């Protein structure tokens, strides 16, 4: 549909305006004409034209260049083509300097005009498509997509919105599965950096050296296999936001490096001696109590204070049980569609069961539970029986034969090893079974030195 791209022709010669308009209309475009700059501005104020053809020499005050400059004030992203019958290099240079997209000499070959118009519109179409997609992406992570009616959560969202356009570092605390990354994305996509990259790094999943090259990149020859210079996540997040997930797990050396980035806004690539400047907003997330880690001497206090400029604590799902029905409805709708199941409701008994459950894995666990129930559900409604395994799981834990002399840490270690054996070393499966996310499990594997 070419008629969605209106074109304005500005020329004092009526025959020029009308013949050109007729030719473009035959091509399917909606075309308006204006005999002078003043009229052109009136029309441009009312309609956002895709292309302006403006004659360079027009009597009565405003010439083509002046008209173009005034149109640009109204429509900064307009495509303006200057036309002239008296071509000189000087006028062409002036027109282009003042912002003309093209400069054509009358008369020109029909093919030239046809290609020029389609080329400009192709770019316009891509720009429009890009804008729509960006809008869609931003909408995906807007605050309203964080589903809640809990007053503490609403306060968090207001705070997230208030800090969205600041550069200040944000520390998000919350148990696994509470939606720390979702809040981080909401902050990024609501602020000035929305159009720039959002880069996530899971600090728990990598060893110190791997994490170092992941964050800062490396130079060719920095280590065996470093065949070329590689940019790190900080560089990739330049002008945008970097989310450092599970920040509490990073080594003392990386804590020092990170402190330098936060203070100086620059770093060295691994094996490099050239300083790299970076402007990335840092959002850190953790499920640990960092203040306690500082007290225990495991986390640098100066880094903690740098990160903790704005602190957001996301409450666990058991502290906002009123959100369970809302989240359940949302996940049933979303997942039933994705799984191709015709389930659209949940019974009161089933909902009560979900409300009473403690959800140690929080919203992620609730989502997984609903997905599992939907997969096995035979009817059009989720019933209590579809979540029977939730109860069984709890019941099964009840008669657990507790060893006499065992520390909590050892108990956790043994539970992890047993689960990994059962899942044949599949970390993802083990994490799901234990009700924690993968990065938490990785962190625990590292802490307990459990081989994989």
């Amino acid at each position: 549909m070419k008629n969605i791209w209106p074109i304005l022709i500005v020329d004092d010669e009526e025959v020029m305006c009308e013949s050109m308009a007729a030719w473009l209309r035959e091509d399917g475009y909606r075309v308006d004409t204006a005999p002078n700059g003043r009229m052109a501005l009136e029309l441009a104020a009312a309609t956002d034209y895709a292309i302006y053809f403006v004659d360079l020499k027009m009597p009565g005050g405003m010439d083509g260049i002046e008209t173009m400059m005034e149109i640009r004030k109204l429509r900064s992203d307009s495509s303006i083509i200057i036309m002239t019958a008296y071509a000189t290099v000087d006028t062409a240079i002036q027109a282009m300097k003042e912002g003309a997209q093209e400069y054509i000499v009358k008369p020109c070959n029909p093919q030239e005009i046809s290609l020029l118009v389609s080329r400009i519109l192709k770019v316009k179409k891509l720009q429009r498509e890009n804008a729509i997609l960006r809008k869609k992406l931003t909408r995906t992570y807007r605050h309203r997509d964080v589903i809640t009616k809990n007053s503490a959560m609403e306060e968090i969202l207001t705070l997230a919105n208030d800090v969205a356009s600041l550069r200040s570092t944000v520390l998000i605390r919350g148990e696994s599965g509470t939606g720390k990354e979702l809040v981080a994305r909401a902050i990024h996509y609501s602020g000035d950096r929305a159009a720039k990259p959002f880069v996530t790094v899971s600090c728990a999943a990598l060893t110190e050296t791997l994490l170092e090259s992941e964050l800062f990149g490396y130079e060719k020859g920095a280590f065996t296999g470093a065949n070329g210079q590689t940019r790190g996540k900080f560089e990739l997040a330049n002008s945008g936001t970097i989310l450092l997930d599970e920040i509490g797990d990073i080594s003392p050396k990386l804590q020092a490096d990170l402190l330098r980035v936060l203070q100086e806004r620059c770093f060295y690539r691994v094996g490099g001696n050239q300083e790299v400047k970076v402007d990335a907003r840092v959002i850190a997330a953790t499920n640990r109590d960092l203040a306690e880690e500082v007290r225990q001497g495991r986390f640098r206090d100066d880094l903690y204070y740098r990160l903790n400029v704005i602190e957001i604590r996301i409450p666990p799902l058991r502290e906002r049980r009123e959100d369970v029905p809302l989240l359940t409805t949302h996940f049933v709708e979303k997942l039933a569609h994705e799984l191709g199941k015709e389930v659209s409701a949940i019974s009161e008994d089933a909902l009560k069961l979900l409300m009473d459950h403690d959800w140690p894995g929080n919203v992620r666990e609730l989502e997984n539970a609903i997905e599992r129930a939907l997969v096995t559900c035979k009817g059009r409604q989720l019933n209590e029986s579809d979540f029977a395994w939730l109860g069984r799981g709890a019941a099964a834990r009840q008669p657990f034969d507790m060893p006499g002399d065992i520390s909590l840490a050892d108990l956790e270690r043994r539970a992890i090893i047993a689960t990994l054996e059962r899942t044949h070393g599949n970390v993802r499966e083990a994490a799901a079974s234990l009700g924690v996310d993968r990065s938490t499990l990785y962190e625990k594997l590292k802490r307990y030195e459990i081989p994989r």
Partner: protein
Amino acid sequence: VNELYLLAVGEVDEHALRWAEAAAAEWFPFPVRRLPPLATPEGSYDEVRRQYRSVEIMKAVARNVPSGAARLLAVTEHDLSIPLLTFLFGQAQLDGMIALVSVCRLRQEFYGFPPDPELLRERLTKELLHELGHTFGLTHCSRTECSMSLSTHVEAVDLKSAGWCATCGAHLARRFTSLKGLTA
């Protein structure tokens, strides 16, 4: 009433007129009637460009449309142009009454080749289908084989076929029916 008129502007080769007459009768559901030729309008010749101003010729043709005409197809040997473009194969009033086709650049002689009457006949048919198509509201078609595709050089005219694609054809069929219904 409800006839498609054919009008020669200036001196036009009789063969070309007969081919245009036959093609119009074959492709449009109206009786074709030839009007007395129209002298080249005064002031239509551009001495600087040594071409004819299409807009002036269209204006003169518009003054000669018989009442009750379905459409008027003007054919000329003159090389047509408008201020913006170096040449035109033809021009039409979009959803209007008049179509104008120039034979000049359809001839092989224009490009320094020997005459080729059959090729000229084909090109003329395609261009009159194109310009008359505009008068029935059709804009350029993206299918290169359709007569309504835009031709900015003669090779593009040769690439398309003498006929409309299914979409353009369906549009025209509806317009023909409504036009006939209105005048029945």
